[in-house]
């Protein structure tokens, strides 16, 4: 399999040339219950950077995110045309193996959703379903991933307590760690901080910025300031179409399209 070496550093913003596209979307059209939700999407999401999808409510940004790990498959009356290439492989190809595709992408949803198990079992759930049985390996995974999300010190003495005993901010970090435990290449965030308080939000944002050296991160957000704070690239979606895609500062400070201008200035929300 083709692997990319990490080109990006923390100064990704200063890199003038766009990096290798990790995810490539070609002529993607999504219909849900006969409605044309996503229209002719063509995109190349770069490696090792944070790309934010912004746009007004109901514009299709979550649908766009969910098509990336084929989570739309299970929804009713969904028709998807076009292709999504991850590392050059079409995940919508007929012989594509869905569970394997999803394993490559960690999803951080709007609200943290701990599985009805202990903290330890939550983290190891992914590795266990993929066949990891070795207890020492599992213990290592738990420690590494909890340290990754800065939760280790807080929970190391109660790993076998229920995950629901954690605060909501801790739960969201646990969910991130759980996603990372299956060693994804891509992290998808669906308004992942919308249920969190400002301090937990900041923790998650900083974590994502730290993680981008190793992962490609795609976030859906409706908070423009968050997009400004964390992202390297911004995709502006309006009415199911990509209006503008570019570097964060270009989109926010110097938008080319009239609709983008209005959105960025806060005239449309």
């Amino acid at each position: 399999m083709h692997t990319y070496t990490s080109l990006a550093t923390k100064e990704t913003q200063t890199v003038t040339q766009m990096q290798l596209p990790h995810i490539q979307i070609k002529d993607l059209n999504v219909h849900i219950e006969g409605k044309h939700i996503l229209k002719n999407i063509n995109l190349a999401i770069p490696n090792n950077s944070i790309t934010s999808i912004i746009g007004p409510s109901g514009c299709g940004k979550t649908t766009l995110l969910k098509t990336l790990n084929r989570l739309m498959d299970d929804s009713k009356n969904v028709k998807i045309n076009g292709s999504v290439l991850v590392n050059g492989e079409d995940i919508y190809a007929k012989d594509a193996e869905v569970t394997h595709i999803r394993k490559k992408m960690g999803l951080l949803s709007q609200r943290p959703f701990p599985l009805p198990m202990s903290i330890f079992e939550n983290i190891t759930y992914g590795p266990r379903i993929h066949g990891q049985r070795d207890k020492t390996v599992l213990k290592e995974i738990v420690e590494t991933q909890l340290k990754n999300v800065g939760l280790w010190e807080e929970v190391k003495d109660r790993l076998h307590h229920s995950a629901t005993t954690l605060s909501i901010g801790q739960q969201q970090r646990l969910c991130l760690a759980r996603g990372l435990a299956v060693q994804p290449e891509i992290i998808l965030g669906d308004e992942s901080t919308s249920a969190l308080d400002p301090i937990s939000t900041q923790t998650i944002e900083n974590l994502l910025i730290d993680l981008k050296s190793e992962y490609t991160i795609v976030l859906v957000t409706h908070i423009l300031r968050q997009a400004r704070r964390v992202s390297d690239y911004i995709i502006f979606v309006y009415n199911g179409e990509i209006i503008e895609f570019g570097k964060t500062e270009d989109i926010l400070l110097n938008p080319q399209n009239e609709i983008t201008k209005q959105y960025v200035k806060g005239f449309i929300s």
Partner: protein
Amino acid sequence: MSTIKSRLRREKIAKILMQLAGIGITGSLFLIIGIILFKGLPYLTWDMISQTPQGGFYIGKEGGILNAILGSFYLAGLSTILACLIGLPIAIYLNAYVDQTSTLARVSKLLFDILFGIPSIVYGAIAFSIMITLGIRASLLGGVITITLLTIPIVVRTLDELLKTIPLDLKNTTTSLGATRWQTAQILLKYIKPGLFTALLLAFGRAIGDVAGVLLTTGFSDNLPLYLDEPAATLPLAIFFQLSSPIPEVQGRAYASALILTFIILIIVICTHILASRQKKHRL
């Protein structure tokens, strides 16, 4: 526009209606238990519980209803276990594998609703006619099969309602970690475990109290139910037979039998509640 006064009045009326309904139901429940206690307790002896009917039991002579107590236990226990073994996979399949909006899901749920509402005498009659065709006589096994069929819809519908309450996020979480549907189903199972006891309780309650389903299929016997292929006594039928006697002694025993049946159900209810709350507490 309604004034604040009339709104408050309606609020009051609604509250009174609800309280009346509550009092009415609780009151009638106590009345039932009171009557059973009042009429049955004097006849409740150790012999009633520990012996089988001796000659002349039904005209007021010695014996007990151990045959019916055991028969009911076996019948209800076996059918509940079987109904869960069959019903659980159906419920899981309908919720974790089948698209909720598909014809299959909708038709089968409708079907289970209909089966849920069919009176047990119909189940009994159908089972009876099949048994006659096959040349099988009334037996414990016949009863178990009939009552299992009767309780499967209860298990499926109860679990279905439970599974529906699970947030879609749970499915999305496991799915996005790369879980297969079966692996997701296992998590769903873990999630509904406390509710599983409610389904068991409902099924057991329906099974142990059923008369019509067992009347034709299980028969009745004064012997202890030792074999699946022999007729077996059940408590509701024992109550029925004793109650139809003109002898006061036997009628009193009918109430004592009802008391035993109520007591068994009480114990089962308490046990399931303890188990369910323990599950909830330990749910991680």
